[in-house]
């Protein structure tokens, strides 16, 4: 059996229907020439990917981040951990200036992180990070003591912050995980810090107050925020019942 160049190409690209695919595979077994044509097609794809895939890992130019967010302010920033509301800001001599700058810069700081983040649950609006969708629901409803291992969001520790808000650490699982700390802010969740995380295997349904493998930057944020001990399973359930409002 002979196959046209386009059929051979479509086979190499995984574009054939099942019947034609089977015919090609059958012929390939006894036709080294055909096998070689297919291998050449695949080799070309690999060669191109080797050439261009490294672009994906390059740092994103600020001007493009600014263009994507429609934001004219472009400041170079690097590092994985983005602390959005840093404590030192409270001692800042010009608090207003600091707040304005922070809200402007947040979107750009976060952009490199969000490009690896799942598109559901985190977004930027008016220069602020918003929690929505899956993540907001999990933060409000999910208990660390009862969550399933395959949940898209894994809640870690819940605790009270110095100003009385309830805060929770979380990991968003998808291709690339993102970990963070969110604190309750009236009826929504406010992100305090975010960092890229590697998904970690953890036992289903096991409550791990402090054992969740969070990126160091997130652990540091927690230790800056926390007052007292993390909530145990009972206190966590009670806080949820109160809608994460102070006792």
């Amino acid at each position, binding site marked *: 059996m002979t196959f046209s160049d386009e059929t051979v*190409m479509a086979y190499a690209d995984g574009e054939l229907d099942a019947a034609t695919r089977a015919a090609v595979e059958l012929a390939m077994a006894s036709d080294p020439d055909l096998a070689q044509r297919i291998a050449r097609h695949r080799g070309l794809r690999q060669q191109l990917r080797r050439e*261009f895939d490294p*672009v*994906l890992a390059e740092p*994103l130019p600020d001007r*493009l981040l600014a263009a994507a967010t*429609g934001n004219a302010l472009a400041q170079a920033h690097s590092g994985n951990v983005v602390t959005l509301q840093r404590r030192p800001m409270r001692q800042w001599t010009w608090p207003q200036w600091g707040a304005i700058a922070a809200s402007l810069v947040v979107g750009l700081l976060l952009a490199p992180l969000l*490009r690896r983040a799942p*598109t559901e649950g985190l*977004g930027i609006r008016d220069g602020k990070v918003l929690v929505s969708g899956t993540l907001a629901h999990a933060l409000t409803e999910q208990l660390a003591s009862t969550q399933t291992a395959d949940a898209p969001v894994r809640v870690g520790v819940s605790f009270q912050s110095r100003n009385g808000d309830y805060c929770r650490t979380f990991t968003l699982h998808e291709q690339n995980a993102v970990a963070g700390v969110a604190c309750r802010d009236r009826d929504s969740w406010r992100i305090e810090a975010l960092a890229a995380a590697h998904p970690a295997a953890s036992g289903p349904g096991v409550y791990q107050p402090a054992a969740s493998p969070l990126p160091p930057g997130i652990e540091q944020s927690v230790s800056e925020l926390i007052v007292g001990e993390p909530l145990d399973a009972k206190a966590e359930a009670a806080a949820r019942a109160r809608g994460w409002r102070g006792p």
Partner: protein
Amino acid sequence: MEENGIRVRIHQCKQPVSPSDLSTELVALLPRLRRFARALTRNPHDADDLVQLALERALARSQQLRPDAALAGWVFGILRNAWTDELRARSRSERIFAPQEAGQNVGDPAAAVQADMLCVQDALARLPDEQRVAVALVLVEGLSYKEAAHVMAVPIGTLTSRLARGREALQALLGAQD
């Protein structure tokens, strides 16, 4: 190939796509847009200029985006059209002014080809634009034939024939190295 296909979607709510949602999605797409542009233009600076232009156009035209539409395909299409505009402008200016950077981005059959020296990017730059776009969408970006045909606004048969010819030419150009 699945993971390289069009995966990013505007979430399926009924409201129009808000600019901030679009921005978040565009940021997520940025690495791929840059890779696609790099395959088209070869020159990294030109590639980023092209991405910037596509981002600006995408934001300006966000009204055109249906909430359930595949965002990646839509933006790839905008970038590809921006590139076509750029090629036309270059060809116009080459007619008006003396050619300066001949062969920089368009196939230049007049130039002596040192085939054994061709790298992937040089080989790609020698393809006719429509073949290069087909190769970039399918082989570099991992789009399906259907998705790539949609981006190029051509029937699938046109896409496959451009892809086949582009591939053949590339293999010939690169094969000379062996």
